[in-house]
């Protein structure tokens, strides 16, 4: 009898525990926290440790060298160019993304024939694996078989012997990398913008119409302010996706011509993994950390803002 009573108490306690918001919240969020600690926190701490040692490829430790790796990296002109490129690629590509995604999303809200097919086609670049689609771009920009150059040659728009080298001229190569980054992130931004547009209540639209706000005026005074929070979310995600990516540069240019398109990620790879200076490679990659911390804080603040409203 006593045993039955005891087991009943245990069951009740368990049920009460599950009813407790504090316990349940902790239990539900624990797997995600564990996941992040193991797969993000662990490697991040390891990278910090390696950046302070003279670790070489294939090892996970070395002699303590303090901030030498950071200083050595800073003195290297290739590193400084990679840092500048990371900022340039991110800012310019995101400006293009915001502009194009805004226009496309607005166009797609209008009643046009074949809208679903259009939406499907726009989403495709996002669905395709980045390495595959970048290889496609590599062929579009190829030094010998570029389809762009072929068309331009047929139309006698370029020098037949020396057509533009999209990946061989530093300025054009920067443009090529930016265009691929923008191309792959535009679909993601379009989806977010569409969701944002759909969330604007029809009453607001009607009220704007009654007040005589149409066209650009309506966009400036009504749609844009309402869309701004969601656009910022797209922007912050876009910054993270671009600044931390090395696939595009690695496949498209290998950092060339003459290392003029290196990003921090690719230069960290070439220095740390290919070149064997693992500690210095870790230091190069950690230069990204402050930028990403700022972006992460902004993302969290915006997320909270949206939650409150």
């Amino acid at each position, binding site marked *: 009898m006593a045993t039955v009573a005891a087991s009943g108490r245990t069951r009740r306690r368990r049920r009460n525990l599950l009813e407790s918001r504090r316990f349940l919240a902790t239990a539900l969020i624990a797997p995600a926290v564990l996941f992040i600690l193991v797969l993000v926190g662990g490697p991040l701490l390891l990278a910090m440790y390696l950046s302070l040692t003279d670790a070489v490829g294939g090892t996970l430790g070395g002699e303590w060298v303090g901030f030498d790796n950071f200083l050595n990296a800073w003195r290297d002109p290739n590193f400084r160019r990679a840092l500048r490129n990371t900022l340039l690629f991110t800012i310019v590509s995101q400006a293009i993304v915001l502009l194009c995604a805004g226009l496309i999303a607005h166009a797609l809200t209008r009643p046009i024939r074949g809208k679903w097919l259009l939406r499907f086609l726009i989403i495709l670049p996002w669905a395709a694996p980045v390495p595959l689609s970048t290889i496609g771009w590599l062929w579009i920009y*190829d030094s010998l078989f570029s389809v762009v150059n072929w068309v331009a040659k047929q139309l006698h728009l370029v020098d037949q012997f020396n057509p533009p080298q999209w990946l061989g001229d530093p300025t054009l190569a920067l443009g090529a990398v930016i265009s691929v980054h923008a191309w792959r992130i535009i679909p993601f931004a379009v989806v977010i913008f569409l969701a944002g547009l759909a969330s604007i209540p029809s009453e607001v639209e009607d009220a704007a119409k009654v007040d005589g706000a149409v066209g650009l005026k309506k966009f400036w005074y009504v749609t844009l302010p309402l869309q701004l929070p969601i656009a910022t979310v797209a922007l912050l995600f876009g910054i993270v996706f671009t600044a931390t990516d090395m696939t595009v540069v690695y496949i498209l240019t290998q950092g060339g011509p003459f290392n003029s398109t290196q990003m921090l990620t690719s230069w960290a790879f070439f220095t740390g993994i290919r070149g064997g200076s693992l500690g210095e490679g870790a230091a190069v990659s950690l230069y990204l950390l402050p930028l990403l911390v700022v972006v992460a804080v902004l993302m969290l603040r915006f997320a909270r803002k949206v939650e409150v409203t």
Partner: protein
Amino acid sequence: MADKERVDVSKLDELSRRDLIKRAGAGVILVYGGLGAHGVAYGAPKYRQKELAGTLRILQWSHFVPAYDKWFDNVYTKAWGRANDTEVIVDHINQADLPARVAAEAAAGRGHDMVATLAPLPQYEDRVINHKEIVQAVTRKRGKMKDVAYRSCYNPKTKKYFGFPDSYAPDPVNWRRDYWQEVGFGGGPTSWDVVKRAAPKLRENNRPIGIGMSNEIDSNMALMALMMCFGSFIQSRGHRVTLNTKKTVEVLKFARDLFRSGMSNEIFAWTAASNNQGFLAGRLSLALNAISIPRSAELSNRDLADKTMIAPIPKGPNGRLGLEHVMHTYMVWNFAENKRMAVKFLADLETKYVGAFENSKFYNFPAFPKSVPNIPVRLARDSNTPKGKYKVLGTISEKYTKNVGYPGFTNAAIGEIFDTYLIPQMFAEVAQGRRTPEEAARDYHARLGTIYAKWRRRGKI
């Protein structure tokens, strides 16, 4: 007898469901139990006719000549495996993916027993065994290793063989006989001076010279070889940086002038495959590459193959000094599970290298020359036209093939310079007029010095 044992289907109806399950269960236990006991006793059967005790795992590139991989995977390793009671598992990946994979295995301390790379990787010296034992075993049977291989895989500072090179690929110049004849240079690119004189005429005919100045392996090889022909070296015999010299300025000026007079700007955008593609498309009149160009032409375009000639690197003010195009190097990890068989496998492979040499269509030259008897005769026997075209590979391998980092040894600093493409970067900046040759020689000397100092501090140079 067989008929008696066969189950009579007509009687199945008479069995109860329980009996049927019992009998079926007993049958299953008998069959699988028997097999299981067999497995426990002898290990899992790997081959239909013979069970093998050990396993040896190898990671290497997908060879440029597919016939080599077929022979290596299906003939050589199978036969060796049967003879040595070891299952050999060979995984192939693209050569461009090898460095990252090798780094991952080294860091994890797990993976294959040995990996083969297209260039020695001295930075992993602490993660591999000393391959001296293999070198000694082969030397006892086949005599000395070639100097180019020795200098590529031995660290004189630590006295360690950080890899075992089974083969290397000589690096000839590929040139179009018809194009060069058209412009009055039928003798081909015999010297860099001839190349410079022929270049404007070839370019006029839309047949540019193709020497890459891009972030890829062939550009590295071609430009380092060009430097040596002009007497410019990255390091001295004693492993000190020696870039800032008049010879370097001279070679940079030469390359800049050659680019302006005889090349197109596509060379700055090349991938490792671009010079092959440009040559096979009929655009280039000259390219520095291994024999992948004529071999590809022989498969796809006989006419082009007949017009494609191979020659030693052109003579420069410092003579002819070329590099190996590939130094195929095996590294046995010090965490390998089957080190003993890895060592034996490599010693056996090298001792009888004829199959590898023939099946790679002369791409793999043995690191121990006596491992393949009568190399000149074999080269002359090649049936492709013009007859005897490949004979020159013998001369190139004997006389003009040096290691990366010559006159010193290949070392970790050379490896980092190679993998961060600093030499193509230097040449490209000068060719595009972004730096004067003097500035470039001075600046890159300092940059290379930083890398050397770093590796010297680590005790590797």
